[in-house]
């Protein structure tokens, strides 16, 4: 009840829209409050002051005031430790559900002073600590577990510091318009469905990876066994052997031909097949209710298929 109220208050007090581009931490974005340790320290100081007054300890006064002003000044140091940092969100590599989505934020420290002990965390307790060297941009990787397929939002993140003495808690919220794509989790290995001829329904032929059909230039992601090592030895550059299924034979990964299992299981199975088909260098197409991707091959095609599976049934693409 209280927690819910607090959450609501925070949402109201610190409401900010999702941001794009580069965010500069200025004094309007940095909040500072004493930490629990800070309150504890204040209590100790009050005790000291009472002792000074009671025993008339002049040097005690000096010490108490030294500690008080040091403590007070750390507020400014905490603020300075965060002020004027420039933060930009980077590209998030797609991941499979069950993995860790790595959100990258580029923290630029434009000042002459190193920034120490910055903590970045989200509301679910994921947390990292880092320092920022002076006059440099530092990529900071913030990993969030990708639990389900679709778009993953980093949510509102909190950046805070307690430098230098832990007496003050200076923090700022950052919520970038950045999301990571989460592919469905691939199902356990399953044999690929048979490749079907383009024309004949149900006409079965052997998988078409025996007929050598020529060489093409290597593209990143091509499977190692397909590299034409002999061609490389002939100094013809890195080339890949292309085996195509016999003319007219191509692999269709078809939603409608799958057994009657749950929708998510179907997506997981199709994901697995897309990966396997690509690995085997086959041409494959993907048919799902409402969309059809023509048979093709290569990383771009693979990414397109996986994306279609990740966002299957979601309102916005």
């Amino acid at each position, binding site marked *: 009840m209280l927690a819910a109220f607090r959450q609501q208050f925070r949402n109201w007090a610190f409401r900010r829209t999702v941001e794009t581009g580069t965010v500069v931490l200025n004094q309007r974005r940095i909040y500072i409050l004493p930490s629990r340790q800070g309150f504890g320290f204040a209590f100790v100081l009050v005790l000291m002051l009472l002792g000074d*007054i009671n*025993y008339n*300890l002049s040097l005690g006064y*000096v*010490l108490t005031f030294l500690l008080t002003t040091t403590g007070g000044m750390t507020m400014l140091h905490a603020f300075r430790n965060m002020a004027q940092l420039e933060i930009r969100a980077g590209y998030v590599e797609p991941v499979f559900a069950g993995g860790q989505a790595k959100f990258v934020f580029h923290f630029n420290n*434009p000042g*002459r002073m190193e920034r120490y002990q910055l903590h970045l965390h989200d509301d679910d307790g994921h947390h990292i600590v880092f320092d920022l060297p002076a006059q440099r941009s530092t990529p900071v990787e913030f990993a969030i577990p990708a639990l389900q397929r679709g778009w993953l939002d980093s949510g509102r993140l909190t950046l805070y510091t307690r430098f*230098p003495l832990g007496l003050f808690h200076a923090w700022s919220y950052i919520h970038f318009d950045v999301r990571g794509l989460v592919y469905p989790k691939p199902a356990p290995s399953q044999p690929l469905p048979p490749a079907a001829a383009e024309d004949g329904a149900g006409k079965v032929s052997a998988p078409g990876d025996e007929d050598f059909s020529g060489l093409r230039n290597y593209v990143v992601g091509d499977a190692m066994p397909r590299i034409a090592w002999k061609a490389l030895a002939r100094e013809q550059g890195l080339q890949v052997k292309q085996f195509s299924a016999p003319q007219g034979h191509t692999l269709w990964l078809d939603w409608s031909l799958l057994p009657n299992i749950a929708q998510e299981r179907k997506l997981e199975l199709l994901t697995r097949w897309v990966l396997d088909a690509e690995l085997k260098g086959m041409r494959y197409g993907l048919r799902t209710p409402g969309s059809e991707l023509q048979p093709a091959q290569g990383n771009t095609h693979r990414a397109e298929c996986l994306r279609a599976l990740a966002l299957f049934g979601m309102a916005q693409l």
Partner: protein
Amino acid sequence: MKITAPLGSPLVFGLIACILLVSAPHAAHLPLWVSTVCVSLLAWRAYLTYSGNPLPARWLLLGITVACVLAIAIAFRSLFGREVGVTLLVLLVTLKLLELRTVRDATILVYLSCFIIITNFFYSQSIPTALYMLFTLLVIMATWVHMQTGTLALKPRLRIAVILLLQAIPLSLIIFVLFPRVQGPLWGMPQDAYASSGLSDTMAPGTMSKLSLSDAVAFRVTFNDKVPSREQMYWRGPVLWNYDGTTWSRGRNATLQRPMLTETNTPANYTVTLEPHNKRWLFALDMPEKLSIPADLAPDFQLLSREPVVARTRYNATSFLAYRANLDEPPQQLQRALALPQGYNPQTRRLAAEWRAGSDTDTALISKALAYYSQNAFEYTLEPPLLGLNSVDEFLFTIRKGFCEHYAGSFVVLMRAAGIPARVVTGYQGGEYNDLGGYYILRQSDAHAWAEVWLHDQGWVRIDPTAAISPARIQSGLNAALPDNTVLPFLIRTQSPLLLKLRFNLDALTNQWNQWVLGYDTERQFAFLTRLGMEDVTWQKLALNMLAGVSLLVGLFTLVMLRRLVVRQTDAVQAAWLKICRKLGKAGWPRAPHEGAMDYADRIAAARPDLAADIYDIAARYASLRYGGEPEKDGLAAFRNAVRAFKL
């Protein structure tokens, strides 16, 4: 968010150093076994950290703690009071180190370390203590920063700690001067709060000579106008009436009548800064008339403060050096001044009776007595032989060696035996002038005892029998009066001009420190701020000024600290290129942010064909310096020359 990082061994060593530093000054007054236990525990912790062994089990720690607390309770017979409190604190903090596991534990230890520093001030607040405190604070800060930054190297950590302290010093100075002082204490202090030193209210043979071996400062005096001569500087302390055959004590005054001074002359105004001695009496020149702090003037002209003097106390006093004191002393007081214990010192009584019979007046008798001292080869010495039952007889007739208490005591006994009311007065005599500070220092070694007799027409008159046998003691001080081979405290003995000067310098510094730092109380604050031009000092005004001063300084710090937060780095090549862009921009062709050097040159060349050659040259040089990988040294000068030569 709670972070529980394991504590690295450098941090643990830092904490051990902090605790060692803050506890070390306590070693002087802690029982030896407590210091030993603490050092062993610290060494154990250091060994565990060094070897990476696990910390001791909780039951073991609990056992040690209980044993230690019990031992302290037995040794001190109590668990309350200041001494016990400090001992417990030091011991428990050391034990806490052995169960140091999280950052939270470390934080508590740091706080407690600061607290232990303050307990050091119960025992010493001298300048070296203050400097030591600053050093300790630096180590604590560095450890504290370490706790928060984890892996940071020692040098940047120290730098942060130094910056924090340097910023705090001027700020706390402002607060120290302006913070409204409250006159303590807020609650009753335990009796053990202050050790007493100095004069006591009894005098037996050996009391004064023992005191003479201490060169501790009793009080310091600044004269506001004319300085009296040294022979007149008798600083009056406890007045002793009762004599039991060996010991003189104050007894109880038989009257409540206020003492009366008549025919007063030669006033002296001066300020006394009295070191705490945990007794009620205050010191003033014979005879005190007025005092700036609340105090009682007893019927025998003894000044008594309302409370024991437990803190350094400053007061202004006025005395009259010429006076008639209590011409009409009540008879019951005179009775006290004639009492002698029965059965002691028969020889002395006989001598007094002889003198009485042979003298017409009291004055003549007194002269006779003083002559007796000066003519019978009495010796002034710090180490008189022990005296027996009839101590005055032995002293006057056989031994004839003694210190001021022997002379004053025997003289008063003689007077009383002869029927002249007399009493012993203790206090300090003389003083050492510090011409750097312009004040007199009275040390314990200046402690003195003299006599007062009551005469019908003159009241109480001071007679110093010591002056009769050793005039040098009164005129030049103890050092001149004693033979050279006497063991005296170092500070009194030194006569080397260099050492003397050094000693005066040090004492002047100490005095300034005592007056302005340690003695900065409500009154001093008021006087100081009034002198600075603040009118009508109230606590509201102080608070406002304090706030203003602190805000101003913090504002200044903020400006300096936030100045260097954004520094755009431009190298020489870029700077020169930006210069030409600015030049052209002013002329009406600003470079678009996305525009490359060559594109920009194209555009300028199209607009101003006359500049085409120059701008292409510059752009080409820029591109080659920036992207061509050409070593900068060679091309840079030429590029800058081209930029400088460029004219629109």
